[in-house]
């Protein structure tokens, strides 16, 4: 990979920090009127997901990370790997548990997810912002409260647990925001 100088830093640039691929979230130049300039950057480590600040001397360069994102449809899991396919080329990629992390609970067959590849290997899977999943279990006894004062927990087909309004019942399909894990609406 190419090296990037601090002048090339901008949001979204992928660089290597401590042997891990990272994406730059924010970049700020800090320079005294008289004296050395620095770049203070906020980065997200792409494997651990950790966000941290790092300071560089302006003019220094950093190794770029060979990171790309690709949109692939989720096919199935064999228990060890989760398989995704490019709907245009039919090329398939298998991601492991580590790449999936918590997002495994939002995988819906045929939904298009964003797969982050580092040196060609999947390191992260981002589900669509909204997914639709069926409720397999929730307390059926509570009815009548349509406003939803605090709701109740509901288990979805993937095992995810979401708080839903009291009127929502087993067997119904709901729309969930995967970024917050919050119930959005019923799907009719």
């Amino acid at each position, binding site marked *: 990979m190419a090296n990037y100088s601090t*002048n090339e830093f901008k949001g979204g640039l992928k660089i290597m920090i401590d042997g891990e691929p990272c994406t730059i979230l924010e970049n*700020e*130049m*800090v*320079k*005294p*009127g*008289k*004296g*050395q*300039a*620095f770049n*203070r950057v906020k980065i997200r480590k792409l494997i651990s997901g950790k966000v941290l*600040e*790092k*300071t*560089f*001397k*302006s003019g220094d360069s950093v190794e770029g990370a060979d990171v790309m994102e690709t949109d692939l449809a989720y096919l199935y899991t064999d228990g060890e790997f989760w398989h995704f396919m490019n709907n245009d080329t039919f090329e398939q990629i298998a991601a492991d548990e580590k790449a999936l992390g918590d997002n495994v609970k939002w995988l819906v067959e045929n939904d298009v997810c964003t797969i982050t590849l580092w040196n060609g290997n999947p390191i992260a899977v981002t589900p669509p912002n909204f997914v639709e999943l069926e409720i397999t279990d929730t307390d059926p006894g509570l009815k009548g409260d349509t406003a939803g004062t605090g709701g109740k927990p509901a288990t979805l087909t993937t095992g995810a647990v979401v708080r839903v309004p009291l009127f929502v019942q087993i067997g119904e399909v709901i729309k969930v925001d995967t970024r917050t894990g919050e119930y959005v609406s019923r799907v009719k």
Partner: protein
Amino acid sequence: MNEVKWAPSAQIETLKQRAAVLASIRSFFAERDVYEVETPSLSQASVTDVHLATFSTQFVGPSYAQGLPLYLQTSPEFAMKRLLAAGSGAIYQISKAFRNEESGRHHNPEFTMLEWYRPGFDEHLLMDEIDALMQCILSCDKAQRISYQAAFQQYLSIDPLTIELESLKAVCAEYGYKDIADEETTIDPLLQLLFCMEIEPQIGQDIPCFVYHFPASQAALAKLNEQDKRVAGRFELYYKGMELANGFNELTDAEEQSKRFDEDNLQRQQMNLPTVDKDMRFLAALDQGLPNCAGVALGIDRLVMLATDKREIKEVIAFDIERA
């Protein structure tokens, strides 16, 4: 055509407030018998400061068919000191300054600077006057003053005037700057790093704060302190996370000034930067005799940011570099 960013980066209302700040500055100096001057933006000489990058161009025309190299001024300092040497008395200037490689939330490569000189003042008297100007423009309280040494002792528990390079590197590593510290061979960039990142965010938050007696190694164009040669008559002003001004009890010794330019150029060579010819007109003026004086440069854009409560420099200038 809709994609073209033609509109100003500042709101019209902000530009009106900016005009009011400029008018207040001019009346402040009129009341004090300091008069306004203008010096060239384009100069045949540039600065040796290793941390300043200049823009250059050339004049082609009568007498200069082959082209005359010219530099956009990083500050009007040298020209104003030539006026002082010629007997101008107290003067100020509101001018554009140009610095390459600088752009960001607090930087635009072309910016507006207020620079003024007070014959007969030392740095403390000048700080008093800056304080008065700040209170006049920002309606803030009287500024606090702390020495560079005391600031490091108070916030980082180290003495910047005596610390050895290795101990300083260890302190930098403690604050998460190991990668930078490992590469450094001199004290000053590391002191500047700790100052910018760890001290600056803590000072001048509620009231403006002057930091004075910068180390002799960062004297720039200031006289060394007569009582303690480890420090210089250089100060800076900070308020709400921004460096607003840099001032000096001005160095008047031409020989010493020339030596500092040579040292800059030596450092430039070590850093693989091009060397810069010394400004001989400026040195000749010092040789002729610069009166004892103090001078300061204050960033007007940043001052307007504070006066109008804006977060980014582009919000107080009509067209930032992206729209210029």
